[in-house]
């Protein structure tokens, strides 16, 4: 269970606006490897999260992000022997050889990408609730909704379980020893997190989640519709040469879903969700940024990549792209209206 309390400024954004923002920020994080853009994106996501939760990130979060930066950098430095700028040469049998600046930078850029993506996902965890996802789960995909909800609540539940285990250990006289505690924490953490996940799933089932009123052939047809849609998209992604077949599967899938679900009524709401001008701004900017980066990924991929081999160089920086990423900071500036 995450924290809510009185909603902070900006937290009242429509869930769809948040979903578009998250999709856009995730697309940027996945499409570029340029550390400047990724750092900027991470900073923007950090500010949005801060504004959303109304509290500064904890030391633990900072430590996690720093370790995410350091780990891939050190790992790549230790195992990659490519690059012209040798920092160190060890005359050892297994781990010896040249340690290069390029390997370090390449690993570091991977770390920046992971850390930025994680920061974007932390906004997702703060802005979107399990019911937000559940309410938007289409009929026939309820198991996916349950899985997504469990996924969404897993991190806060695991954090709670972690705190509970540490507390129980302290009550039993255990003195924390830092990283050496990890093995003693993992098993109970997994057990408690699984218990929480099962409890959530049981609670959802017991309260009627997933009751779509579909029976017999309609249920089968909905399943076939989603399957056709997924198969068509996957086929196109794997082999663009089979675009015709892929399109046919997508069309058949959509037709099956339309035939089955056209009369399905939408759910009701305790708190009606209103779409405000601010939502339009946030959603519009998010779509614009995502389209820009998708276009560049196909039209000018070199603008987005960073490859320090064979000799390290500063990553390029296009001010226009930096400004585009900065536009994702709209939720910080736009009010509740």
């Amino acid at each position, binding site marked *: 269970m995450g924290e809510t309390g009185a909603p902070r400024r900006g937290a009242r954004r429509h869930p769809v606006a948040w979903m578009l923002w998250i999709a856009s920020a995730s697309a940027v994080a996945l499409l570029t490897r340029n550390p400047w853009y990724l750092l900027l994106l991470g900073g923007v996501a950090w500010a949005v999260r801060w504004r959303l939760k109304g509290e500064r990130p904890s030391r633990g979060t900072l430590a996690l992000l720093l370790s995410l930066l350091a780990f891939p950098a050190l790992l790549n430095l230790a195992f990659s022997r490519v690059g012209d700028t040798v920092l160190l040469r060890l005359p050892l049998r297994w781990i010896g050889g040249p340690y290069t600046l390029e390997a370090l930078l390449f690993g570091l850029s991977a770390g920046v990408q992971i850390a930025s993506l994680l920061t974007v996902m932390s906004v997702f965890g703060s802005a979107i609730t399990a019911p937000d996802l559940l309410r938007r789960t289409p009929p026939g995909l309820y198991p996916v909704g349950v899985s997504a909800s469990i996924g969404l609540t897993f991190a806060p539940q695991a954090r*709670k379980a972690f705190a509970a285990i540490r507390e129980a250990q302290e009550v039993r006289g255990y003195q924390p020893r830092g990283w050496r505690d990890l093995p003693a924490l993992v098993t109970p953490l997994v057990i408690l997190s699984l218990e929480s996940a099962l409890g959530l799933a049981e609670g959802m*089932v017991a309260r009627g989640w997933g009751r779509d009123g579909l029976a017999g052939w309609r249920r089968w047809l909905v399943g076939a519709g989603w399957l056709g849609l997924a198969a068509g998209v996957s086929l196109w992604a794997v082999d663009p040469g089979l675009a015709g077949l892929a399109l046919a599967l997508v069309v058949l899938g959509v037709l099956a879903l339309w035939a089955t679900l056209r009369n399905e009524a939408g759910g009701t709401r305790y708190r009606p969700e209103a779409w405000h001008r601010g939502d339009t701004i946030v959603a519009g900017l998010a779509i614009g940024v995502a389209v820009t980066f998708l276009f560049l990924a196909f039209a000018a991929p070199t603008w987005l990549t960073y490859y320090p081999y064979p000799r390290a160089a500063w990553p390029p920086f296009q001010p226009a792209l930096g400004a585009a990423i900065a536009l994702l900071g709209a939720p910080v500036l736009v009010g509740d209206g």
Partner: protein
Amino acid sequence: MVEISHLTYFYPGSEAPALRDLSLHLAAGGMHLVAGRSGSGKSTLLRALNGLVPRFYGGRFGGRVVVNGLDTRQAEPVEMAGQVGFVFQEPENHFITRNVADEIAFGMEVAGLSGETIRTRVAEIIERLELGPLVERPLDRLSGGEQQKVAVAAALGRQPPVLLMDEPTSQLDSQSAEAVLEWVVELRRELGLTALIAEHRLGRLVRHVDGIIYLSDHEADVLSGPAGEVIPVMPYGPPLVEAARALGLPPSLDPRAAEELLVQLELRAGQLTMPRAAPSGPPRLAAEGLSFAFNGIPALEGVSLEVRPGEVVAVLGRNGSGKTTLLRCLMGLLSLQAGGVWLEGNEVTRRPVSDRARAVAYVPQWPSGLLFADSVREELTLTLRNHGLEASPPIDPDVLLSDLGLSEVADRYPRDLSAGERQRAAVAAVMVTRPGVVLLDEPTLGIDPLAQARFGQLVDAWRSQGMAVVLATHDVEFAAAHADTALVLDRGRTVASGPAAETLFSQPSLRTSLQKLTGRLHPASVAELACLAERRFPAGQRDV
């Protein structure tokens, strides 16, 4: 309405059935109490009625269960949910949303009720269960009792034809429990609701229910029928029935039996007083002016407490009054805003929890949280190892396990044990260092009355060994039976304190069943009555 035919169920991997050849017929509109010892299958029976057993849990299922015309073998649990509302025993794990109002509304949203209906019902529920101050609070910031109220509210909001409640009032204070039960009774009267309620505390329920289903330890034995017929043959009963037993009167729910009990108590009024000698000497644990706030909301304001060797202090109060917070502050699990804690005269306010743990044992509300080793025996070893006492334990772990009745389960995985066994395992895990102070949070929660009595004996034994015990509880009967002193909290402040019987009597909502019946301070508890009756009227000489 509910038809159970030859129901037998085995959990996955289990050789022993959780339910064996159970057959029942319950008419529509009835209210039934499901009773039985911990692990007797009460929760399993309720889950079989809404299809979670076996559809969610798997396992082997035999027989047939039909609820409101739906056969659980054919209808899926989500279909059953339209007919059956469910309140889980540990609500926190089953919450879906983040705050109180959304959680109450969720089931109604899923059921497709109109927005207007949902808002009207949510407002009514919030007013009825006094949830107003909590309505926008995150669920994980509520006390256990407050969470339970929300879970009950969420199930009742949908007004299903059948309502299943697994210990719905176990964490509630008496006013909240009464409010919940009155509401169920009203829904039953207005809507013909059929309710099955699994509970250990029989006292507040027996007058509302049409029948009792008692799941016995002896596998195939299920006692079912009107409360007046079943209670006398059960191994435990509500406090007044137990009081009648203590005086050698027939155990009965008949109003004439209560009158006879009152007459007997009045006749012996002068004799039935046994003031406990107050422990003296310097306090072993003392707290002065404790204050704590969660996110700026005061949870404890200037609370002081002293507990001496051989003294048992009960902390009572409504849900969210600060009982758990007080215990956690005493243990050092929360950082105080003001005040201090002294142990044997030495200030320990700034000392870490692990330091205090050698001298102070703490058992939380849900003791499962303390257990994470592979076996019960390993739990004890773990604590000893943490304190560097593995080579020379202050108490032989095997002796402690035997004293707590855990020898037979010493090698079992702790989280698979029954509620009572889990609680005793947690107690063993923190008591193996022989601490001088014991802090118990809701020690009777989720355990059956026989296990409660056994646990009470353990508390009495600790007292006689000179330990200082602080217990936070809603169970006034348990507090009256085992505590010397009581401290009553209200919204984080002390509103009453003093000798247990007097303090409970001074708060009308905290009076015990015997105090309510007689209008007198003593006897305050069945245990006190039994002790006095035994002393005054040895067996065979009672004038009944």
